[in-house]
């Protein structure tokens, strides 16, 4: 439970960092920290947890983004599940492994998002810059893979730590 809360906190923090910082960087395409976290969780934890993490991340992103709630839920859910489904066939510790996964996840996320927007009739898609944004976004996301993994490892480590109740009581008495 504690680990789930911590991971939720990490996702919430990533949502805010995405909105407040990364989206404002003067880059060709903004990196998608949430997508990278979802992919990392999916690869490490499998299909179900990847999907759950994706749904949670998507919900947070939908709330902050201001669009119809459900678009990012679908996108990240599919990406998280897909990342989880390929975990057995990938060597995630290979130096280029995470980069390839991040690139593939960016392409998949963009494709799913475009499909959802078109299917739901949410508006026209800017096709011309899409390819460029896809390439630049994949590169940016690949750069974020290692920091995202580090953040997740930290959350999991902190989530598994046990605190002796006696020490807490002692501190409480003082």
């Amino acid at each position, binding site marked *: 439970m504690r680990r789930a809360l911590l991971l939720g906190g990490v996702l*919430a923090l990533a*949502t*805010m*960092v995405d*909105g*407040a*910082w990364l989206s*404002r960087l003067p880059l060709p395409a903004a990196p998608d920290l949430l997508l990278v976290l979802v992919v990392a969780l999916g690869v490490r934890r*499998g*299909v*179900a947890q990847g*999907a*759950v993490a994706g*749904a949670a991340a*998507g*919900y*947070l992103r939908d*709330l*902050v983004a*201001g*669009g*119809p*709630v*459900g*678009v990012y*839920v*679908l996108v990240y*859910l*599919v990406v998280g*599940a897909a990342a*989880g489904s390929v975990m057995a066939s990938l060597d995630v510790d290979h130096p280029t492994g995470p980069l390839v996964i991040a690139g593939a996840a960016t392409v998949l996320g963009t494709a799913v998002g475009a499909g*959802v927007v078109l299917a*739901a*009739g*949410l508006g026209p898609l800017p096709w011309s810059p899409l390819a460029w944004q896809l390439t630049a976004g994949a590169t940016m996301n690949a750069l974020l893979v290692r920091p995202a993994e580090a953040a997740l490892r930290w959350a999991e480590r902190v989530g598994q730590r046990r605190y002796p109740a006696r020490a807490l009581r002692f501190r409480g008495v003082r």
Partner: protein
Amino acid sequence: MASTVHRTTLTRMHDGRRRWLVVGVLLLGALALLTSQVRRPDRRVVGPLGTLVLSVLAPVQGVLARGADAVARFWQLYTEIGRLRAENTRLREEVQRLSGEVGRLREQAQATQRLERLLAFRQQLPGRALGARVIGRDSRAWFAVLLVDRGARDGVRRNDPVVAAEGLVGRVLTVTSGSAQVLLISDPRSAVGVILQQSREAGVVEGQGQRLLRLKYVSREREIPLGETVVTSGHGGLYPRGIPVGTVVSVVREQAALYQEALIRPSVRLDHVEEVLILVEGSPDR
């Protein structure tokens, strides 16, 4: 043993199905959520949970955004400083270049003025005059000698008179093929036969190694007025007649002396002269 393996395989399959079931349920839920949203007029309903989450996230995001603003402002300032520094360097270089250009043009204008005066003076001189540029002088000022860029191959000979637009400079001391040394009238080795322009009294102007010259051997019969112009007399054969030498700035009359003397300020600023004329013809004897 076989039944254990069979049971394990079944368990794995069951787990796999359960995972995909979770994914399927989530997908259905997401689709249902999206469908319900899209049907609304605003295409967005956040709901109580969303409102709660947003109310928690928004302040934190505000703090992060303010931090980002501060960083952005700092970065903007930093880049602006860098840009200003580069522009400042460029402008300094531009100012230096333009200052050099102004100095060069000013120098050119002054040289033109000097040459114009020299040319006008040249028209009044007898014989052929050769323009020469001063290319050196003794830095210690022990000797009042100039080096000019004309020599024997230009027709310059020893003892040729050297003048500037304002008056007499000196005479050629030594000649090489491409240059000549000019002994200035301020050198102690120099002596020039002169007359006072108004009184027509004759005398000799000698150099003292200083800025002022000394006028000697002037008859005591008439007083030398201050400010009187002294010109070459043409006696002695070195210098043509009538070239300004200087003006009287003070007179020395000693009781027991046979002659009176005076201090003369040269017409030409000998320490600043840059272009001269060498009278290569018309000076009768060398």
